[in-house]
């Protein structure tokens, strides 16, 4: 138990910090320019000069991935924070107030669940033009009902616990109870959902980019690289392998970190360390 937790925490932290470091590094230095095309060097396999090979325009895949880290992290962070902030607030209010407020907010969530993220992105793109910002907002809004539902369900079960009654007897009002007693008890599942949503956000941006709604070329995006690689996979597998690996490693790192965070947020586990 203790060792697994330690390993999770370390691997997760290292991967997450590495992602941040790569994103920062790519702002000042990349092995090759990500904007200059070189058709004579297109679809090369990995070599000393191009560690991860080149894509169909002769751009260095490693450099593209490095710059793409910025995009992946910002999409993940912004869309998760948007969904988390609005969803948790909505869920806590629904659980605390009950009655028609709960009914209204949860039916609102049903409506949002039924609304495809692509349609939302198309609407935003139609109104404000396509781009990664609008894609973040669309994915973030799409995350709201997930977090709202999760928070409400968990919070409702916490509200029935006796220590909530004890807090009420101590004179705490519903706002204080929600923030001081309910939220700390549901934080662990929210952390896990946040890491899952983070991974999904990167993939959702890829899907939106594919439709021309998400991150626009030439800004590198992991998801779009993966989508475009489908056509060239037989000629040069590295154009598909490396973006895929990048997404997988980033998601793994965040999941491990989220897992370890959840365990350390729960004093019943933390006490055993």
């Amino acid at each position: 138990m203790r060792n697994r937790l330690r390993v999770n925490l370390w691997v997760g932290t290292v991967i997450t910090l590495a992602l941040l470091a790569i994103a920062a590094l790519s702002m000042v230095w990349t092995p090759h320019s990500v904007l200059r095309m070189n058709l004579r060097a297109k679809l090369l396999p990995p070599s000393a000069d191009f560690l991860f090979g080149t894509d169909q325009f002769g751009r260095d895949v490693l450099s593209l991935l490095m710059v793409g880290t910025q995009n992946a992290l910002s999409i993940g962070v912004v869309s998760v924070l948007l969904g988390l902030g609005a969803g948790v607030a909505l869920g806590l209010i629904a659980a605390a107030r009950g009655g028609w407020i709960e009914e209204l907010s949860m039916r609102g969530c049903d409506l949002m669940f039924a609304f495809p993220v692509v349609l939302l992105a198309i609407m935003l793109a139609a109104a404000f033009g396509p781009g990664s910002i609008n894609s973040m907002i669309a994915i973030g809004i799409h995350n709201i009902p997930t977090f709202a539902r999760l928070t409400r369900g968990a919070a409702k079960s916490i509200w029935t616990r006796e220590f909530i009654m004890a807090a009420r007897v101590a004179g705490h009002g519903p706002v204080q109870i929600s923030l001081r007693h309910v939220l700390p008890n549901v934080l662990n599942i929210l952390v896990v959902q946040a890491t899952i949503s983070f991974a999904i956000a990167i993939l959702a941006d890829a899907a939106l980019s594919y439709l021309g709604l998400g991150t626009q070329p030439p800004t590198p995006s992991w998801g779009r690289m993966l989508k475009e690689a489908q056509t060239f996979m037989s000629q040069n597998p590295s154009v598909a392998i490396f973006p895929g690996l990048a997404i997988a490693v980033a998601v793994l790192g965040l999941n491990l970190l989220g897992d370890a965070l959840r365990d350390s947020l729960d004093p019943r586990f933390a006490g055993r360390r």
Partner: protein
Amino acid sequence: MALLEVDQLAVTLQSVAGLVRPVDVVSFDVNRGEVVCIVGESGCGKSTTALALIRLLDEQAILSGSVRFDGQDLLGLSEARMCALRGNRLSMVFQEPMTALNPVKTIAAQVMGPLLLHTAMSAAEARVEAGRLLARVGIDQPARRLDCYPHQLSGGQRQRVVIAMALACRPDLIIADEPTTALDTTVQRQILDLLLSLVDEASIALLLITHNLAVVSEIADTVLVMYGGRVVESGPASAVLDSPRHPYTQGLMQALARPGAPRLTPIAGTVPDLARMPAGCAFADRCPRVIDACRIARPVAQTIEPGRTVACIRAMELT
């Protein structure tokens, strides 16, 4: 004037089976420095009475009658005014110390909660006070326990922490709902002694809710026996326990293991369904001394001695 005056309190709830009255006209007083026990079996309305007093029942519950606490009518107060009283001048101790504490917060944070809410103390002062409270309720090494989480304490220690929280703001009245039921017998004894010493030292009024007559005989000054949402017998604890007059109280006493008691006699049958309360005495179906007149109307409480009431039409002829 008594500290707490409950007059004709009734609670009506809407259930699937229609309107039910888990508490049907209950009246009693609690004075400072006095221990009043409400006794009865599960479902007799004793916990509902307690929750009604501090207005923590479901919002749909309809309360009637009056509850005067230190002169002000609690049933008429706004929720904000009630919040200012709860945990401050009246507080409550729960049955399950395992679940009455928030598992993800330290003991210090939980004991400091009411202090930070109701007093002008800074966090540092509240922490010192929390340590003092833990020492007062008999937790050894209080300074070390402050940073523990609830799961690191034993059941008895947790109940002491819950009592420390209830004591934090020096309340006038503590309502304890089966505070010893979840604890083993030796710890039970210690917790009762602790509650009694607090009542004596700080002249706190204690309203203790229990189904355990042994507990009543040890600490109660006044006892109320509840059945089917009504008080069937009340009076000084010694008088009620030594010479019970209501057949239900008599039954309870016979079902209690005591030295010298020949054998235990259970009370036959079960508590009547709240949704289908009989027109007559609620205890009639289980009563060994039932007569036809019992089933006509619910008996009213009659005073048989000063301070002692019995709600049984045969109270005068039975001893």
